[in-house]
């Protein structure tokens, strides 16, 4: 097991390094050097040279990459040329907003999706089951930013039930929660369907197993059997998928943050892209990619510890 974890961790690290080099290479190979792009058309050569020197752009590419990787390993992602602040600081400042949003969305989606999938499995073939099947597919298919826009339009602007902009006053928990509702729904709605489908499928499998039959033979009430004996086991694969989902939810979070003008990594990256602020782009992409790779690694490891067959297959 330890060998498997180590191997997977090394592969993840390799992938992360490759991803960083790829991005770094692209930034510097594309025509138009970052310094002149950032300073605009009216920049003098002296200004450009000064900025290039300040950002280390006058060094050979390999040296720059080496410096960046060495810095990143120490948690130093460079300096934002616009504000002069450290990129790490800026990224870490935005990260909690995104994490809260993602956790709220996943939490809400689980609260709705798990019971829905559980009921659908118990009453298999009923109208509730069929409705859940159609609704889950619908929720998964609809792009989250369209959901976000519609929510903003109706609940935020027309009816004014929820605030349309920002993350709420710092320190005021109730206000922040109020601001969190719409983005979290927009982000989590698709996951309700996804979770419901997963729970339903694994509940159906578990309910066929012999320990459930044994529990029935003992005359335990159906409720106890479902909640304590079936659902517990059925939730395991769902939990791993959720782990993986947190990484991919960053995409949806970006749209939710932009639509609701919420601070966060997605909005930071988006604005950096518009301003061609490459150090911030690099920092934000690196942090999110790292997050993504880490959550994939974590769910692989959990999966392997649950199912020994996977270890053999992956180690092939």
């Amino acid at each position: 097991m330890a060998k498997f974890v180590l191997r997977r961790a090394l592969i993840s690290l390799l992938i992360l390094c490759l991803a960083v080099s790829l991005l770094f290479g692209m930034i510097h190979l594309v025509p138009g050097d970052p310094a002149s792009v950032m300073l605009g058309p009216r920049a003098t050569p002296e200004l450009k040279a000064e900025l290039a020197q300040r950002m280390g752009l006058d060094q050979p590419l390999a040296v720059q990459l080496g410096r960046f990787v060495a810095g990143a390993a120490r948690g130093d992602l460079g300096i934002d040329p616009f504000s002069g602040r450290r990129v790490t600081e800026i990224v870490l400042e935005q990260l909690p907003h995104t994490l809260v949003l993602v956790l709220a969305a996943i939490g809400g989606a689980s609260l709705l999706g798990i019971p829905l999938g559980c009921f659908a499995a118990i009453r298999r073939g009923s109208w509730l089951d069929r409705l859940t099947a159609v609704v889950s597919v619908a929720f998964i298919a609809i792009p989250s930013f369209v959901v976000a826009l519609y929510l903003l339009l109706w609940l935020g602007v027309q009816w004014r039930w929820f605030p349309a902009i920002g993350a709420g006053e710092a320190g005021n928990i109730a206000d922040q929660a109020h601001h969190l509702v719409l983005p979290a729904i927009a982000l989590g709605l698709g996951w309700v369907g996804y979770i419901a489908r997963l729970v339903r499928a694994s509940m159906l499998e578990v309910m066929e197993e012999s320990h459930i039959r044994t529990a029935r033979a003992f005359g335990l009430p159906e409720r106890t059997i479902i909640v304590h004996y079936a659902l517990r086991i059925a939730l395991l694969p769902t939990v791993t998928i959720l782990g993986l989902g947190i990484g991919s939810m960053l995409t949806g979070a970006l749209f939710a943050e932009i639509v609701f003008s919420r601070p966060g990594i997605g909005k930071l990256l988006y604005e950096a892209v518009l301003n061609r602020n490459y150090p911030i782009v690099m920092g934000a992409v690196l942090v999110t990619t790292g997050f993504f790779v880490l959550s994939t690694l974590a769910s692989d490891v959990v999966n392997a510890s649950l199912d020994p067959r996977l270890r053999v297959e992956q180690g092939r």
Partner: protein
Amino acid sequence: MAGFVLVGLMLLATVCAPWLAPHDPLEVDVTNRLSSPSAQHWLGTDQLGRDVLSRVLFGGQVALKVSLIAISASMAIGLVLGMIAGFGPRWLDRILLVSFDTVRSFPTIMFALAIVALIGPSLNTVIGVIIATSIPVYARVVRTQTQALRERDFILAERAMGASTLRILRDHVLPNIAPPLVILASMDVPAVIAMEAGLSFLGLGVNPPTPSWGSILNDGYSYLRNSPWPIIAGGLPLIAVTLGFTFFGEALRDIFDPRLRRKDA
């Protein structure tokens, strides 16, 4: 069934857009901006007085073009790379696998944003990004299927008779992996359309004044407090089409693979 109808309607409306559209989608009428639906403009007008219905109809062409080009290209490249990985020597397989995983390790939208920041927004950039991020998905499926097939008796028999690798891949592996690939592609359409619309919504896709569902939503978002109609009108076709293609893909899967239907129903 609903999927077939929605997909059919979308194709029809998109192909016939030049005849169906009541106005030129680029025609500006500043005296009549951000108006509500009326007999003349069924879905109202946007901030430049352009007819939203006409823009929605022509926006379908962009969505269709992007998904058609991006999916067929990434499927073709993914097919070749996947077969090489699945049938070729193990070291090549390892290298290809790590490069697939590298591309997949970026959250798609982050990758797209980084690329757009570098080369600037255009429809071709969007198509390129979608192709680059989809190739690994197709290639991985093809690789797994090819690997499963290469040990089968009929392939071994073919080999023993001296068939070339190319012949085996073309005549025996390809027909066997085509159905799952087609299903995957049809399930991919809504994701690609959503991606194009998403990037255009962020102002990083099609260049104005080209109508796309995403850019209609972007215009609507900027003038949200003046008129809700562009957002409603731009979002509905997106919802209808993503739903339509998802149901369509599921129906297709049921036809090709009845085993899944039994388990899933």
